[in-house]
């Protein structure tokens, strides 16, 4: 496993990363400027009288009176220094509002990835090994259904069932892990299950087909003929190779989960970024919407960057292409 990572591959990926981050920032920056009608008048809200002075005041506060390239430059330098602007309504720094709301979303996403990806491996291996048996067909049908179950609906059904079966169980809302670790995890069980099921279904199908592929390869036959045990063949020889496409998919699935988390948060009344963004949209608090989208997308891009690098470490052929 001791090999030197090709510098050229890493540099290339890093350049890709910079280009994508730049593109994302330009799109997010432009969003606010594409709002039809006078965005500034909208941002002033319905309750205040709209006067030219007020508009000019707000315009210079956001910097809308400068040329667009300068605006972008000011905005992005601010962001790189951790200044995401001020929330129009509360006057608090956007960065603070986001930090106050980001942990539940990140925790929900992280636990869901852990649960979904973690369980997908043994389930996928089981499906590949027991191919065609009744139990396996059953699991496979469940996987297809799991793929199209809307997670927010599953969440609602779970709340309903639990409210009937275990009245009084705490399952809504959020307590920080640092304050009450058990209460935190207890409230995470249902949302994590609801959110990760489609991913679990998708990934276990992927592991299954990758395993079927791997189990048919020559090196697996060789391992078997050398007398390696079933466990060693499946989990050491075949699985290691089957995991390669799996890792890329985990990266992509993280993006779905980040988005899905926003919806599932609404179901379970979790005060995460979803609540912040949706509140901001209805208040027309565009800087807050803009920054939240930027922060989450950057997170997602970084996750995929790390996945790409991991991919190259596990499978050196990738870097040689």
């Amino acid at each position, binding site marked *: 496993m001791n090999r030197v990572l090709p510098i050229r591959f890493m540099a290339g990926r890093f350049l890709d990363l910079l280009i994508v981050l730049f593109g994302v920032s330009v799109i997010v920056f432009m969003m606010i400027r594409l709002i039809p009608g006078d965005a500034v008048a909208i941002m002033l809200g319905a309750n205040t009288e709209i006067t030219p002075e007020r508009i000019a005041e707000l315009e210079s506060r956001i910097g809308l009176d400068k040329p667009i390239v300068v605006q972008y430059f000011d905005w992005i330098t601010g962001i790189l220094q951790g200044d995401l602007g001020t929330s129009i309504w509360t006057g608090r720094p956007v960065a603070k509002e986001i930090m106050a709301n980001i942990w539940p979303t990140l925790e929900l996403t992280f636990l869901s990835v852990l649960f979904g990806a973690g369980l997908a491996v043994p389930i996928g291996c089981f499906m590949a090994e027991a191919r065609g048996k009744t139990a396996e067909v059953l699991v496979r049908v469940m996987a297809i259904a799991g793929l199209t179950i809307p997670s927010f609906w599953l969440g609602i059904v779970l709340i309903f069932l639990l409210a009937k079966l275990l009245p009084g169980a705490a399952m809504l809302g959020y307590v920080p892990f640092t304050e009450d670790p058990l209460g935190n995890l207890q409230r995470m069980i249902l949302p994590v299950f609801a959110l990760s099921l489609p991913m679990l279904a998708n990934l276990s199908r992927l592991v299954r087909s990758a395993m079927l592929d791997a189990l048919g390869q020559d090196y697996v036959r060789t391992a078997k003929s050398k007398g390696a045990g079933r466990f060693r063949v499946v989990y050491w020889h075949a699985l290691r190779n089957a995991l390669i496409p799996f890792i890329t998919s985990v990266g992509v699935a993280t993006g779905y989960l980040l988005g899905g988390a926003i919806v599932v948060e609404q179901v379970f009344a979790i005060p995460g970024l979803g609540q912040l963004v949706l509140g901001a949209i209805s208040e027309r608090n565009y800087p807050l919407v803009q920054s939240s989208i930027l922060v989450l997308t950057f997170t997602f891009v970084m996750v*995929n960057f790390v996945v790409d690098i991991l991919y190259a470490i596990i499978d050196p052929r990738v870097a040689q292409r």
Partner: protein
Amino acid sequence: MMRALRQDKLLLFATIFVAAQVVLAILAPIVGGDPIEQVIMARMKGPSFEYLLGTDQLGRDILARILFGYRTSLITCGLAVLLALVVGGSLGMLAAFYRGWFDRIVMRFMDVLFAFPIILLAIGIIAVLGPHALSASVAIAVVYIPIFARLLRGPSLVICESEYVRGARAIGASDLRIVFRHLLPNLSSVILVQASLLLSAAILVEASLSFLGLGAQPPTPSLGQMLSEGRNFLLLNPWPAIFSGLAILFLSLGFNLLGDALRDSLDPRLRKNSGI
């Protein structure tokens, strides 16, 4: 096509399953009745002979609302996938056709769009356009444009290098003729399969958006919005939430199975160890 249907039981089942739901959506006013009429005396009723799926908190017929919700879903998502196919597919094919800097710039831009988490990009676009069914369509379309572009670029590259395209070019066929006579027909099965699978995913995205109040606005019935309303009265009357969720599930499942079955039946190489 007909022979494929007879041979492939899954394809047959998926086709019937999808067709039944589409027909019900088309016939919604006849089969379902009025989705907006409120019968105050019959609020929050469970399923009965009068109201097959019961009524909601305002005494509206859930069956009628679901069938009209199917319409909203199918129109919004159909439009979105069509738009994404036309824009994204064209970009992908043209990128493969012209190569060079055009290819590089287009595909870079697709990479950037693809970098956004789907729901998040859709929410951003709706924040700009305002919450509306049409905004949801546009948002989903933008999200799917890079998927179609990437999907069609690969096979287009191969086809553009093939003997018959070279031959066509040698006898002086125009660019347009090559794209429409040679490229497009050869991509039709990829397009058909992917459109069906993406439609299945789009239905879930649309439902999520309207669940968040960012899709079709009342009084237009939509499945996500029904689910979100039903959630507020969950313990008093769980039926609206249960049935609207099942409707989303069936619609999405139908197109997913159809896409899967189409892929298996159109690509014989996949048949021996296909997913289902």
